[in-house]
């Protein structure tokens, strides 16, 4: 196991007071919290800082940390054989530490307080398992239709004698249709195991939905750009429009303007038992970038014969 210098991370001396530690943490939390920080590697730094504070703010954990001795940052070390016994955790003799880190060791110690007979206020009372969190990245089509995902997590597990180790935690879960980017879901009972008959924890999922090249999501509604040639907009046309549930034929009425939204009712996202959202086709008028002489002549003829003035309102608005 690699040593982490928690005092160094917080920038305080080993003999710092609890108040000094709190002040140092608050300063660093403001600097590195990923919600507010623009610092490079802020998330990683904040994790380090909060891990250090989690241990040093608790007098019992701090004493246990101090008992580990002083080592260089990143130096391989083993806790002394009798370390942890006073906190209700079994001795360290014969344990393996390759698969856990220092924060796992202290998580094990915190767990031991509640689990070991007489080890703290909770004693043998039932203890709920820890909740786990995982980020699930899915494609737009998976979000639209719903999907199943396999998650491979690494979870802490307590030995009967109070030791702690990391074990693979596999969960297969069904993501409901219509899930949104940033939405949180809960998989009941798929967190850590409860102790002494306590319930298992839950697994919380942070859903990240990849952008789709065509569709943009707004609540349950979807938006898709519908490029039309000028003559299609003027004369009207029928267009094969791709939707997430399959291609549909959309009738574009004559005289359709740029920016107009053509609604396809119920073709948006469906969430639970609520009515489906709509799909809006957003009209764009595209003009050809290269025009040959024949077409140029046709446009000239149109310009000469048409009395359409798209800027007629300029005169009206400026002559007031």
């Amino acid at each position, binding site marked *: 196991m690699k040593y982490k210098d928690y005092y160094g991370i917080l920038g305080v001396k080993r003999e710092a007071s609890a108040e000094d530690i709190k002040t140092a943490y608050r300063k660093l939390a403001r600097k590195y919290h990923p919600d507010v920080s623009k610092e490079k590697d802020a998330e990683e730094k904040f994790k380090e800082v909060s891990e250090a*504070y989690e241990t040093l703010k608790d007098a019992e954990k701090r004493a246990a940390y101090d008992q580990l001795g002083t080592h260089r940052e990143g130096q391989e070390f083993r806790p002394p054989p009798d370390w942890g016994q006073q906190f209700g955790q079994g001795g360290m003799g014969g344990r393996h530490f390759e698969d856990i880190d220092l924060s796992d060791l202290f998580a094990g110690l915190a767990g031991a307080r509640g689990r070991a007979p007489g080890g703290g206020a909770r004693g043998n009372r039932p203890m709920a398992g820890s909740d786990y969190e995982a980020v699930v990245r899915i494609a737009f089509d998976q979000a639209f239709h719903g999907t199943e995902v396999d998650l491979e997590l690494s979870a802490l597990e307590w030995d009967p004698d109070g030791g702690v180790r990391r074990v693979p935690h596999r969960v297969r879960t069904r993501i409901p249709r219509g899930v949104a980017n940033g939405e949180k879901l809960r*998989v009941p009972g798929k967190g850590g195991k409860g102790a002494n008959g306590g319930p298992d924890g839950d697994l919380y999922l942070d859903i990240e939905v990849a952008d789709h090249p065509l569709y943009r999501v707004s609540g349950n509604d979807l*938006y898709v750009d519908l490029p039309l040639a000028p003559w299609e907009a003027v004369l009207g046309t029928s267009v094969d429009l791709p939707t997430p549930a399959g291609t549909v034929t959309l009738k574009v009425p004559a005289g359709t303007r740029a920016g107009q939204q053509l609604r396809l009712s119920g073709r948006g996202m469906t*969430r639970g038992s609520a009515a489906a959202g709509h799909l809006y086709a957003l009209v*764009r008028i595209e003009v050809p970038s290269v025009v040959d002489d024949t077409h140029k002549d046709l446009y000239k003829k149109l310009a000469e014969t048409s009395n359409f003035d798209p800027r007629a309102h300029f005169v009206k608005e400026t002559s007031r």
Partner: protein
Amino acid sequence: MIAPVQDAVRFDTVTEVTWTQIVNASGLSEAELTELVQYGALVPRDPSAAPLTFESRWLIVARTASRLRRDFDLDAHGVSVVLSYVERIESLEKELRTLRAQLG
């Protein structure tokens, strides 16, 4: 062996969660949660009921409150103030997403 499939469930305004579920899921103490209810940061279905029950979406708010308390070492009043800003940011982000979707 293929693991059985477990449904992931949404947080919504229909499903009800109990006070005990809010306490367990948030990791906050009952006293801290009671303060958050008093400040209006968590809204029970019926404030006069005992024990309180909530729409399940408040469970996410309670977990956010717990994270804010831990990360910034805030008291319950501080958490309630930050939660109101978080709510405002989320509302503005939603509006921004809608406008972006409509603009293309």
